[in-house]
């Protein structure tokens, strides 16, 4: 879509920024990366009342233009650097009307960059309810910018905001908030002359941030450094003076325009809720109850849609086998591509439920209470209260969780969090566990309503958290810290979840799972089909010749087909490969077929299920399609006649999947986040060693 005007959305965290973005753009949005960094960039389009189209860029939430994390540093670069491809024509600053004072700090900084600005005064309904009276027209007059009262949650004031965008000035008309030049007069003068700048605040920001800004050349940065020395500039003192000046401006503004009832003595609803939710005992009980409920839900609710999807795929495969002529192409389509596809689609219900829970917990404000409660505990093992979110997010997927560690300011805490997050049971392991548990754990209820399979799964989840904590504790002693850690975090007011946001988040995650993981899985499925259908040299022809001999004429035709297929698989490329690694994995209780699955899983864990489907479908009788689980259940060891998937083998396999770094995407994201191959290499090595050891122990204990 071609846009006529580019608008950047800026605001503090928890101000309803993403709700406003969703209301403005609807489903008309896409997520990408900001150039050069791995920060999520959300861009959408909005039709204005005059027929023009606005491109809306959602910038990461921040309290200030002085960044504390990589996410936040994007804001200044996009806003201030005129050469940035996303440089906006207009900025919408969203302010929480119930919390104006702190919100206005960011406004006053952005306003001083002299970009045309519109203020969206959000949560006006809540402010009114609390008895706060805001003189909007005086507020607007004093700032010199259009101010539009809105309620993003109720979609009120959105049309007025769009109208304000279409009438927006091309030049910045806002009043100065503070006298920026007085903070460092000579330095600002020198930098402005040197770099030919007309905005004093931009010059001052360059003085503070020049070392980390990518749009400055090394020469420019060095020159700024020289000028700072020359004028003996002290960055922290200057920043402190600026913040105090800005709050003086804000206090004056609020004194004139906002009347608040005297409620200092009243206890807020949020506080009352917190008395229970962060209680010494109830707080923890509730937290674990929520986690427990989440996993039970994933296991029991998701079953119905999953069965429907699985049945549908079996029906399609059967039908195609009947309709299409027998041959390699049909086999590739049905046993390769469609079998792989079904392995992807079938897990959407579980992923959707998991992401729905996580986004509800974040949206309501509960997640920051978890951070608050767990900080001391997490610090003992070398983590940080903020590590809780990536770790819980790790239950969904390590990739976005590792990206979310950017909110952890402390280098050591962040590295440890990155190192242990892939240990947490992610949704890609879920299909593997689901399949194996269903195979060897009886589907019975114990006590009142605890399903035995659900308990086994919960056990795997708890086990993964415990191992993450233990490994973190070990890393605490290995890594040397670089700077001091701190923990200053807003506790947002409790709010009901915004179902639209939850729905968007779930939709986005499922889509990216299907597109990213799905393409890998289907590609692997096709490679695997080829490997399983062809063998080196003329082995296949020899097998065909062997079975044409007269002694096989008396054998039942059905049995003959199965024998041929089985012998062919064993002699295929996949079979040969599996046999090569069999001696290594034999001590873990795995045969060469599981070996194939382990190899293919190194691309992505969930490929295990697809591999099993392919291996056993190729091996089976095509006219009698059964679900993967049944096939695995019937799998017998050709030598002993015993079932392949015993209790010990299944748990040994689960241990392997619990620890092994079988995820190409995670390795890639750790490399991107740490900017070195050293960390992913260390991670891969320690996880593989743990996987082999845990698997070995599990197999020999349970055998």
């Amino acid at each position, binding site marked *: 879509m071609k846009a006529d005007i580019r608008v950047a959305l800026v605001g503090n965290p928890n101000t309803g920024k993403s709700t406003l973005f969703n209301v403005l753009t609807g489903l008309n949005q896409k997520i990408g990366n900001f150039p050069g960094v791995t920060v999520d960039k959300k861009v959408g389009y909005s039709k204005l009342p005059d027929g023009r189209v606005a491109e809306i860029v959602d910038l990461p939430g921040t*309290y*200030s233009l*002085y960044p*504390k994390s990589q996410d936040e540093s994007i804001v200044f670069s996009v806003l201030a650097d005129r050469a940035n491809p996303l440089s906006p024509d207009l900025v919408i600053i969203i302010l929480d009307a*119930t*919390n*104006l*004072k*702190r919100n206005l*700090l960011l406004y006053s900084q952005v306003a001083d960059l002299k970009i045309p600005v519109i203020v969206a005064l959000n949560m006006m309904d809540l402010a009114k309810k609390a008895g706060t009276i805001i003189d909007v027209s005086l507020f607007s007059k004093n700032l010199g910018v259009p101010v539009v009262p809105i309620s993003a949650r109720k979609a009120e004031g959105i049309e007025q905001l769009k109208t304000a965008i279409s009438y927006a000035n091309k030049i910045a008309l806002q009043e100065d908030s503070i006298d920026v030049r007085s903070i460092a007069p000579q330095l600002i003068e020198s930098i402005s002359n040197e770099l030919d700048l007309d905005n004093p605040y931009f010059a001052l920001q360059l003085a503070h941030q020049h070392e980390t800004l990518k749009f400055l050349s090394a020469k420019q940065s060095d020159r700024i450094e020289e000028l700072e020395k020359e004028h003996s500039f002290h960055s*922290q*003192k200057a*920043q*402190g003076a600026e*913040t*105090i000046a800005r*709050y003086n401006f804000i206090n004056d503004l609020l004194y004139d325009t906002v009347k608040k009832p005297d409620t200092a003595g009243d206890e807020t609803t*949020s*506080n009352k809720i*917190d*008395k229970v939710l*962060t*209680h*010494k005992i109830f*707080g*923890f009980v509730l937290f674990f109850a929520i986690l427990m409920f989440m996993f039970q839900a994933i296991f029991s609710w998701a079953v119905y849609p999953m069965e429907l999807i699985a049945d549908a795929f079996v029906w399609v495969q059967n039908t195609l086998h009947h309709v299409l002529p027998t041959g390699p192409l049909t086999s590739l389509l049905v046993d390769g591509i469609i079998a792989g596809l079904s392995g992807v689609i079938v897990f959407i219900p579980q992923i959707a439920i998991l992401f729905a829970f996580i986004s509800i917990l974040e949206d309501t404000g509960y997640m*920051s209470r978890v951070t*608050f*409660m767990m*900080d*001391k*505990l997490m610090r003992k093992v070398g983590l940080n*209260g903020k590590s809780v979110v990536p770790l819980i997010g790790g239950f969904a997927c390590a990739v976005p969780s590792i990206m979310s560690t950017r909110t952890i300011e402390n280098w050591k805490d962040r590295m440890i969090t990155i190192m242990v997050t892939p240990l947490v049971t992610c949704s890609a392991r879920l299909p593997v566990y689901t399949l194996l548990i269903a195979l060897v754990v009886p589907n019975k209820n114990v006590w009142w309503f605890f399903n035995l399979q659900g308990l086994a799964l919960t056990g795997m989840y708890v086990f993964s958290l415990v191992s993450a904590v233990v490994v973190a504790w070990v890393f605490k002693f290995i890594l040397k810290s670089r700077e001091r850690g*701190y*923990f*200053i*975090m*807003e*506790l*947002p*007011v409790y709010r009901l979840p915004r179902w639209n946001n939850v729905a968007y988040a779930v939709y986005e995650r499922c889509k990216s799972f299907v597109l990213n993981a799905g393409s890998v899985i289907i590609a692997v499925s096709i490679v695997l089909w080829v490997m399983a259908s062809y063998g080196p040299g003329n082995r296949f022809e020899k097998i065909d010749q062997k079975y044409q001999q007269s002694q096989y004429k008396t054998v039942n035709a059905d049995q003959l087909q199965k024998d041929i297929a089985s012998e062919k698989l064993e002699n295929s490329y996949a079979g040969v490969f599996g046999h090569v690694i069999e001696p290594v994995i034999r001590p873990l209780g795995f045969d060469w077929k599981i070996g194939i699955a382990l190899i293919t899983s190194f691309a992505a864990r969930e490929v295990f299920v697809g591999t099993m489907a392919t291996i056993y479908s190729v091996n089976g009788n095509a006219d009698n399609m059964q679900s993967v689980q049944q096939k695995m259940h019937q799998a017998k060891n050709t030598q002993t006649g015993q079932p392949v998937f015993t209790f010990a083998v299944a748990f040994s396999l689960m241990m392997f999947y619990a620890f092994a770094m079988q995820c190409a995407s995670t390795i890639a994201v750790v490399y991107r986040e740490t900017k070195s191959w050293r960390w992913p290499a260390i991670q891969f090595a320690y996880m593989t060693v743990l996987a082999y050891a845990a698997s070995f122990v599990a197999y020999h204990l349970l055998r």
Partner: protein
Amino acid sequence: MRLSQLEVGEKGIVKEFTDLEMSIKLMEMGCLPGEEIRVDRIAPMGDPIAINVSGYQLSLRKREASTIILH
């Protein structure tokens, strides 16, 4: 008197800071000299604490709270 010494429900007014680096982060979050602070809650394990300042709730560790000197 330091912020870390307040009990739940007690109030104080910020006078100054003992740590420059920390003070910048605290001031950006609305914790400025002259502001009134009330301790709302202490985390179940005794740390961090939740305070009410500038009209919203902020959590910080005891060690960080001890850099804030009150009137």
